[in-house]
């Protein structure tokens, strides 16, 4: 272990943080512009070409804004909470491979910060830490709305963590490893989304709930709880919550792209390793658009329905998906018959349709056949 390795780690970590911070800033711009297009508006287009300097203007504004700490809050936790939220969202990306390796000054530089052989376990554990930040923010604000937001959020994140974990299991079974790089390399022939489309969908839904995005933006729920857990925050402390949410959106899209959409893989990526991050970036932008699209069109699900959706529909479905995937692969292996392997997507989609039928039956019963 020589000193250059340390330098490499520090530089890579620093660059990744910078990518996420800039990504966050431009994701807000991207979201506002995309939402505006969907909503027949123009969106921010004044600062710089097509409003490209808008995030910088926003950042400057938030930094120079007065830090208002209300008198009735529990100060230590109040200040700690945004930090607890933003740090996990930054370190989460460490295990996501951005590309293969390339040579620089006779040194092989790998395009990921850490090659953890239990990368997925790392992801699940770090992702759960963020819930502390939100709960503590809600609690320390000493505000009833913030408290309700914090409680909602903890219940929601814990329930959807299980589903998220089970979707990870699907990817692990398919990739035959817990290492993110191995999983990506397994997808050279075929993206996992083709084999397990339902698994990818469940993962996506669970991550929407995990990052508190619409239609699961319960803790914030502007129309009910005004701003939820960050009601009492202003200035840069608020910006940290904002930052955490958007960085998590990026990271979680990166993870989804890595697990199910072939990560950095794409044409000629072996010849030109630097294409890897570009492909990943393109996939992330497409996945992020999905999140924005959902936010633009769908109403928010009610809190108790969210919980029953998580526990009664999504969790059994993801269990079934994990089971179907494992059985399919085992049978294909033991009986040496590819037919079983290809029955995985078919059976999974049938399972999804059954779940959707259950939802509609419930709605129809509830509405006495009015829909």
């Amino acid at each position, binding site marked *: 272990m020589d000193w250059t390795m340390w330098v490499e780690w520090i530089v890579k970590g620093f660059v990744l943080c910078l990518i996420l911070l800039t990504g966050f800033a431009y994701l807000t711009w991207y979201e506002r512009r995309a939402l505006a297009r*969907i*909503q*027949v*508006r123009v969106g921010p287009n004044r600062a710089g070409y097509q409003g490209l300097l808008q995030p910088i203007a926003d950042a400057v504004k938030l930094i120079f804004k007065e830090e208002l700490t209300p*008198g*009735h809050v529990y100060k230590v936790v109040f200040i700690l909470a945004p930090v607890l939220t933003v740090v996990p969202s930054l370190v989460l990306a460490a295990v996501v491979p951005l590309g293969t390796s390339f040579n620089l000054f006779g040194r092989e530089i790998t395009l990921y910060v850490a090659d953890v052989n239990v990368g997925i376990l790392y992801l699940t554990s770090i992702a759960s830490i963020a819930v502390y930040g939100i709960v503590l923010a809600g609690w320390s604000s000493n505000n*009833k*709305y913030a408290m*309700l937001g914090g409680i909602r959020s903890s219940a929601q994140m814990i329930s959807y963590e299980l589903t998220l974990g089970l979707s990870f299991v699907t990817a692990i079974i398919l990739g035959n490893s817990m290492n993110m790089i191995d999983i990506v390399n397994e997808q050279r022939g075929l993206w996992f989304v083709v084999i397990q489309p339902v698994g990818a969908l469940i993962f996506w839904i669970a991550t929407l709930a995990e990052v508190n995005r*619409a*239609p699961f*933006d319960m803790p914030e*729920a*502007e*129309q*009910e*709880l*005004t701003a939820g857990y960050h009601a009492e925050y202003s200035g840069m402390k608020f910006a940290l919550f904002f930052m955490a949410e958007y960085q998590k959106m990026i990271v979680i899209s990166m993870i989804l792209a890595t697990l199910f959409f072939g990560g950095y893989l794409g044409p000629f990526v072996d010849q030109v390793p630097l294409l890897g991050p570009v492909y990943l970036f393109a996939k992330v932008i497409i996945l992020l658009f999905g999140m924005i699209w959902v*936010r*633009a*069109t*769908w*109403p*928010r*699900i*009610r*809190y*108790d*329905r969210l919980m029953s959706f998580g526990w009664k529909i999504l969790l059994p479905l993801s269990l079934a998906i994990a089971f179907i995937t494992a059985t399919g692969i085992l049978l294909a292996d033991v009986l040496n018959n590819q037919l079983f392997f290809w029955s995985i997507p078919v059976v999974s989609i049938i399972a999804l349709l059954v779940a959707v039928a259950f*939802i*509609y039956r419930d*709605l129809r019963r*509830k*509405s006495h056949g*009015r*829909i």
Partner: protein
Amino acid sequence: MTQLQPANVEQYKHLISERALTGETMLLNMGPQHPSTHGVLRLVLELDGEIVVNCIPDIGFLHTGIEKNMEAKTFQKAEVMTDRLDYMNTMGNNLAYVMAVEKLIDLDVPPRAQALRVILVELQRIASHLVLLGTWGLDLAAMSMFLYCFREREQILDIFELVSGQRMMTTYIRPGGVWRDVPVEFEKAVRDFIKIFPKRIDEYEKLLTKNPLFVDRMVGIGHLSKEMALSYGVTGSNLRASGVNWDLRKARPYMGYEQYDFDVPVLTEGDTYARYLVRIEEFRQSLRIIEQALDKLPMGPVRSDNRKFVPPPRSEIGVSMEALIHHFKLWTEGFHAPNASIYSAVESPRGELGVLIAGDGGPKPRRVHMRTPSFDNLAVVPELVKGHLVADLVAILASIDIVLGDIDR
């Protein structure tokens, strides 16, 4: 650490349950600065977890003293205040007030003015329902709905600007008719809207009506029974969604509504979803009325020529001595109304908007009282939200369609 003053529970002790005093349930102050209370409504909620145990509406934050102010103005000038009453229904308020004045002084309205009034009031009804639908979507976080609805509302406001010069505070409908004849572009503007709007309604329906998330938030929420609706004096679409076929346009036709062919949508379920469906159907029916009224829009004067009440046109002032005298008298002193009191009501987008005017023989009203629909509709909200979640409260409040300017006056 500074300690906030504890809220004074004494003043609403009789309105909350015992459990709130022991701290078992939580009192939550919702509003007057809250994004979903549609203005400056304050709700004191007693919550058990997130379940609403009690809801106490607190109104008066937008009190403007409009009714009292009107007593200090002549009948013509007081009309301007009605625009500010229910700011989503300015044309309708004008009509309600003007109809009462006309009834008081027994003034006839030419047929062309009647038809124009119907067209404009129905356009206003659509605009009001559009705001309702948009904010409803916004309250449920389907925020694109808001902007789509406002796109169409803009078209209606443009028509209002075309006829009156004002987008919202129109004061276009005047005693004895309307202010002036509509410009030639009016018909095309309205026809354009009629052509485009049915497609837009279908778009809204595609976004919401069968959307499982939307249906889930709507169905079975805030059930308003027929009996409760009648006993609380709920009117308008809310009443019709509870199975009572009561629409003043059909029941007590005014402004020649009897000559138009339209249906009154009535549903029996009485929940939030039914109220939504009634509104959507009312869009279509209003369009039908507008189309018919526009097709047989008669030619002729748009204002009564009873010079004792209606000022003469400007062109006559230069050539006619009488016209000059009438003009001077009407704009300085105003017209005199008999010492009597009358009540007249119209169907506003929110329900029965009634105006009671008492004259005292002079040019100013002795008393003007508005029977505003939002006031009675809000009164039933505490009954509807009991046992529902906070999220449902927002949906119910949106579905009841209150306008605080209408409540506080």
